[in-house]
Structure formats: C-alpha cells, structure tokens
C-alpha cells in the first residue's frame, strides 16, 4: 500500500475507523426500519403492537445517534469542520424542500398522497450525504 495513503491510527480519528464504529448501527437501523415497514404492511397485529413496531426503529436510530455523536467528539478539527459544513448545507436544504413541497401541495401541484413522511425522510437523509460530499471536496 502506498505509504502516503495508508490509513492513520485510530486516535487520529481517521474517517474509515469512525465509519467502522458507526456503520453497524446505521445498518441495524436500516434492518429495523425495513423490518418494521414489512411487519406493519403485511403482518396483522393489535393496535398497541403496531405502535410499538413503528417506534422500534427510532430506538435503534437513537443508538446510532449516540455512536455518531461520540465519533464527532473524537474527530479532529478539520473533520468537525467538514461535518458542520455538511449539516449547514443539508439542514437549510431540508427546510427548503419541506417548505416548497408544502406550498406546491397547497396549489395541487403535488399530490397529497404522493408526498408523505415515508417518502420525505429519505430525501432529508440523503441531503446530509450530499452536503458531506460537497464539504469534503473543498478540502481534498
């Protein structure tokens, strides 16, 4: 491996090491979410169980969030700056998206049943990764 590109040791908060720490939790959230989707759509269950199943992915996501916040605390100054810039791009864009869709829905340009929470949140999720790509390119 090129010595210029081999990864740093863990205490330098190398991106690949931090990803290895948080990715399993993100994957677990994905599994929990997809599992809940299928269960709620196809498995008959009492109302209380439905709500419990609907909330279960949120509990897994909180675990991921705790790991992610820990990863941010271990990041060095540039990585924290990149994360901040990514969030600074993603958060206003998410607000813009939701606001614009709301107004379009009001005038009937977007179908009420097409844009719902299930379809909207992945868009917001991906906005963060778009922000991260943009922020990282700046310092490459």
């Amino acid at each position, binding site marked *: 491996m090129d010595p*210029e590109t*081999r*990864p740093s040791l863990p205490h*330098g908060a190398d*991106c690949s090491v931090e990803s290895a720490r948080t990715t399993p939790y993100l994957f677990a959230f994905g599994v929990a979410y997809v599992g809940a989707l299928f269960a709620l759509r196809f498995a008959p269950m009492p109302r209380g169980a439905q709500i419990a199943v609907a909330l279960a992915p949120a509990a897994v996501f909180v675990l991921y969030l705790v790991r992610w916040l820990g990863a941010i605390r271990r990041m*060095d*100054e*540039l990585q924290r700056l990149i994360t901040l810039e990514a969030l600074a791009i993603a958060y206003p864009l998410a607000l813009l998206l939701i606001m614009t869709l709301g107004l379009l829905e009001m005038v009937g340009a977007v179908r009420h049943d097409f844009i719902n929470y299930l379809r909207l949140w992945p868009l917001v999720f991906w906005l963060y990764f778009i922000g991260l790509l943009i922020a990282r390119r*700046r310092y490459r």
Partner: protein
Amino acid sequence: MKNRLRVLRAERDWTQADLAERLAVSRQTVHAIETGKYDPSLPLAFKIARLFESSIEAIFDPGAARA
C-alpha cells in the same frame, strides 16, 4: 496558506500517516494543511511547531494566505 510542512516531513522520512499520528489528527487533515486547503487552528499550529522544533512563522507563510 503556504507552508513547509511537506518539506519538514520529508526531511524526517515521515509519511502523512506518521505525521498525523504524532499530531493526533487524521491523515486527511495533514494532507489538507500541506496542500494549503486548510489552515490549522492555533493549538494545532503550536503543536506542529513544537514537533518540528521550529516557530510557527518559520513553517507557515502568512504572506501567501488564501483570500
């Protein structure tokens, strides 16, 4: 801003990863500083200067700072 980090690192035959470990930062940060894409904070600049037994002014060139 321009700096002599790459030269100083090469004099000691360190890779970017070696320098990153000594500074407790990521290799990406070392690369960004060397290429002038990122200016280190004051504490990190002092750490760099101490590591190379030099002064901040001798390593970093503020006259060529990015606009």
